[in-house]
């Protein structure tokens, strides 16, 4: 198994994006080998992978298999797409707050107003 030391992510690059880039790099460079990715002190990414911020996350290892061309690969146990899902959701939330900086919940009077407005439209069955 290869072990490569990868440099830290560049300023401004999100941890999941960095991780994806490294996975893609591993996929391009190697075929049929397992790559061990060791993450040092990255609670944000650890959280995306199911860890809690309170977990003592000094080091996290992820084994990534490259070049899966075996036709039986679909029948093997595979890792879930948790990282992609959580990254997608996290990105949607981040963009929402960037595009709409004043994003907020309804205030109590607004919620009350909405409740009264709905009463005009709804009829008992």
């Amino acid at each position, binding site marked *: 198994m290869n072990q490569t030391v990868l440099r830290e992510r560049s300023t*401004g*690059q*999100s941890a999941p*994006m960095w991780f994806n880039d490294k996975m893609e790099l591993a996929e391009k460079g190697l075929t049929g080998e397992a790559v061990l990715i060791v993450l040092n002190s990255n609670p*944000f990414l650890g*959280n995306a992978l199911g860890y*809690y*911020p*309170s*977990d003592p996350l000094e080091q996290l290892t992820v084994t990534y298999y490259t070049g899966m061309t075996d036709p039986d690969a679909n029948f093997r146990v595979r890792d879930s797409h948790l990282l992609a899902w959580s990254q*997608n*959701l*996290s*990105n*949607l*939330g*981040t*963009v*929402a*707050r*960037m*595009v*709409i900086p*004043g*994003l*907020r*919940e*309804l205030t109590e*009077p*607004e919620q*009350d*107003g*909405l409740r*009264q*407005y*709905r009463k*005009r*439209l*709804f*009829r*008992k*069955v």
Partner: protein
Amino acid sequence: MFGDDIAAYLPEHIRPFKKLLKDFPENYEKWVHSTSLPNELYQGDVLDSAIIVNVDDQGGIERAEIPAIVISCTCDIQPGRSDTLLIAAVYDFEDYKRNHPLTDSKLEEHLKALQRNEIANLFYLPPGQKLKASVIDFQLISPVSLSYVHPNRVKNRLTSLSQVGHYFFLMKLAHHMTRPEPEDAKREQPK
């Protein structure tokens, strides 16, 4: 405002539209709707009329026959795919404005925030295609049978969203449904 940072968070097919998102709410009405109605039903399409059901404070059932927007994912709502789809209530913006109990500056403030899409529970859609300016109520989402919608209600759609309009819709829906906690929120480990 932010610089080019937003591009790193956008999926590839949305990156060409980053300037539109950066300039929001400017020109929102020009890019949120698609230019034509697709043949298939899409997430974010607005139906001319559908039934929204709610259980009231006393446990009674109430209903409203009003326009509705498709909340379910596009792949789940094609004929024969699943039994039901989720739709959310759509209100006519002018009617909402006329009949809202808030008054004067309070109402003005509320409507401004609504039109800037700052209220997480509501989604403002400007007029476009056959749709008048509308308010989508994310708090009132109902399941309806797929057979109830296909094919006649699909024919009578008021609008469909553009690619970037759909992303914008999804962004607000995801924020409303998942409400991410701050990163420093205290959590306990599961026992």
